[in-house]
């Protein structure tokens, strides 16, 4: 069955107590896990007509990212600096690690479920054995300070579908691509348009690369965020840049609206690139880009800003987490 964005329809909305910052989907099922500002992980079976989320407690602050590992294992991370391994069957934490010295922003799991990467504001990417929780490697390739002497932030990471490469990106628009097996840096990219320093107006910075996505064939790397913003950090253009990361060439750039792309995902056969954004008013959107024609071909105003997103392995279902709700869209033809 094909996944056509032009057929997109909202099929389910589920209210939750807090804002949802992260969503992960269990492949081949209707199960998702979400987490956010109330520090609980929620297990949700979306096949039910009126799903009743089950809350799992363990974090002490916002949950920033979730990753389904394999079998009965789920990992979450948060602004409490922790990684927590969960037993899906019981909903109990099985391992808690003080993983970073500062906020943990994002985690990503290899397709075989054996390795997990975490990035945090201590500007280190750590590679963990998902089965044992053992720290396998620390990757350091991002400057701890911005050019203007403030603390930088390592916002996001993503792993290629072949499990070979990991990309990490920071506040100032620096991207590093690593070989997971060796920890070697294999590429570095700079996307300075994502970093904005306003000396005269507000004398602080804004921006940063907030989302990354590898294309299914692993050749392209998309980065999302915000181009520029006003003094109150509410009115900047959403920005996506796509790179042929091996050559370093920037192949595409899209700007529009007034929001931050916090989530990007490629169609499982690279038919399109999806961006999901949080913003005010009508600037809360799902946007679909055709890289062949270098254009945005479908735009949908979401019922909530989208802070976290998961795209199913067939690209037929989108789960978006936002303002006290999770929304499910179907793209099935």
């Amino acid at each position: 069955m094909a996944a056509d964005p032009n057929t997109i329809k909202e099929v389910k909305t589920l209210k939750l107590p807090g804002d949802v910052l992260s969503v992960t989907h269990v492949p081949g099922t209707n199960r998702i896990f979400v987490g956010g500002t109330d520090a609980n992980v929620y297990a949700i079976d979306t096949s039910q007509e009126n799903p009743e989320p089950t809350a799992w407690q363990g974090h002490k602050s916002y949950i920033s990212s979730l990753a389904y590992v394999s079998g009965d294992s789920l990992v979450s991370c948060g602004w409490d600096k922790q990684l927590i391994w969960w037993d899906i069957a019981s909903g109990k934490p099985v391992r808690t690690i003080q993983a970073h010295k500062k906020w943990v922003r994002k985690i990503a799991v290899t397709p075989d479920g054996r390795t997990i990467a975490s990035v945090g504001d201590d500007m280190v990417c750590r590679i963990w054995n998902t089965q044992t929780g053992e720290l396998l490697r620390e990757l350091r390739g991002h400057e701890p300070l911005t050019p203007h002497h403030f603390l930088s932030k390592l916002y996001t990471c993503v792993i290629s579908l072949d499990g070979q490469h990991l990309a990490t990106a920071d506040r100032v628009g620096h991207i590093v691509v690593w070989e997971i097996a060796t920890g070697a840096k294999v590429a570095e990219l700079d996307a300075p348009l994502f970093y904005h320093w306003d000396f005269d107006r507000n004398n602080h910075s804004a921006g940063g690369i907030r989302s990354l996505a590898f294309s299914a064939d692993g050749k392209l790397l998309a980065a999302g965020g915000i181009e520029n913003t006003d003094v109150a950090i509410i009115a900047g253009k959403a920005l996506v840049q796509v790179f042929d990361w091996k050559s370093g060439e920037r192949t595409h750039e899209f700007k529009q609206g007034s929001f931050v792309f916090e989530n990007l995902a490629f169609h499982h056969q690279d038919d399109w690139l999806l961006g999901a954004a949080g913003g005010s008013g009508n600037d809360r959107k799902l946007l679909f880009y055709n890289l062949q024609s270098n254009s945005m071909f479908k735009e949908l105003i979401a019922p909530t800003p989208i802070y976290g997103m998961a795209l199913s392995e067939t690209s037929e279902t989108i789960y978006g987490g936002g303002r006290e709700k999770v929304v499910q869209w179907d793209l099935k033809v």
Partner: protein
Amino acid sequence: MNRFCGSPSHHLTRRAFLGNATGAMIGGTAGLKMLGTPLFAEQLKREQKQCILIFLAGGASQLETWDPKPGTSTGGPFQTIPTSIPGYHVCELLPKMAERLSQHTAVVRSLDTTNTDHDAGARVLLRGNRPDDSVTDYPTLGSVLAHELEQRDARVPNHVALYTAYVGLTLNRVPDAAGFLGSRYDPINILSRLSPDGLQPPKSISDFEHRQRSELRSLLAQQFVRGRQRDGTLASYNDAYQRVRGIMASDQLFDISKEPQNVRDRYGPTLFGQQALVGRRLIEAGVPFVRLNRGWWDSHGENFETHLELVPELDHVMAVLMDDLQERGLLENTLVVTFSEMGRTPAINAMRGRDHWGAAWSATLSGLGVKPGAVYGATNDNGTEVIDGKVDVAKFYATIFQALGIDHQKEFKASDGRPVVLTDYGTEPIREILA
């Protein structure tokens, strides 16, 4: 009020400093070498009370600083840390000040100023809550304190305001002006840099020529003013001109390259840190009032990212400034006040921002006249309202004046001759936080 005590030692010290500073303009830095000497600091300590206002333009969040509410729907992602005040916790972004609170600082957690707008908030917070708005030329806090704390023989500026960003100057559209007190107490505004423009005469005029012109202008001005003595504006202009050469001589006060590298490193590389070092130099030289205007905190979007950047800088600069003032013996005669034009909403909006909030927010006072470690007032569990010790602007101002030894019920005469009181009649300061 003239705080010149009249003692010979005072006179000698001030004159010695100023004479040397004037000389420094011509050919040396001898006057500046007096900065930091124990004798000079001791002299100031005995004689002069001073104030630094750290104005967090745009509205810093009380929840990400002095009144955190972790674990509540309004609390945000940050955790809290204990402070040197038993039982009092602050946001984890303030570890340096957390250590120092019991030594120097009182916290007010119960400001209720009702205003939720930058302009109106700044008008109220920088002028005090004027009960009689018909006095349109009421001076701002800095000008009032410059007037009250100045030393008449001083040739350093009375009132200096350093801004990190221009929105603090243009969005807070409140003329930071001396109004009916006269231009002598107007601020020297320094925007996005460390020193004012134009302290030196044009290169086409020699120092000798400048002196001659100044003397001629002074002679003519005295003849003109004679018979017009009741015109305060004329007198004020004349004062200002007479001070020009003294202020010109103070240009090196703004030059932090005169500081040892380790001191500059201590304050850090950011503009706010460097401006704070300029502020300390100005205080050390006897400037009565310095405003460090750190903006722009307005975080309607991404409040936590903004505060993650700005609060650690505030923590560092406040801590270093306190330490440096204390080590130089200046903190016991200097009040350091930190506040914004308002706080930020407990509710977190769709852009993970916090909006404007005046009903329950926080400020700090450190140093002179303050009971160290005092924590005054309380807000409810989610920080939406004050539940104990509500403080309005008049009460807050009365506390500032009292800490500086100024009668908060003192009356001035406005331009039209009407009496104007510093804080509304019957206002009481927060005595619980005063030493």
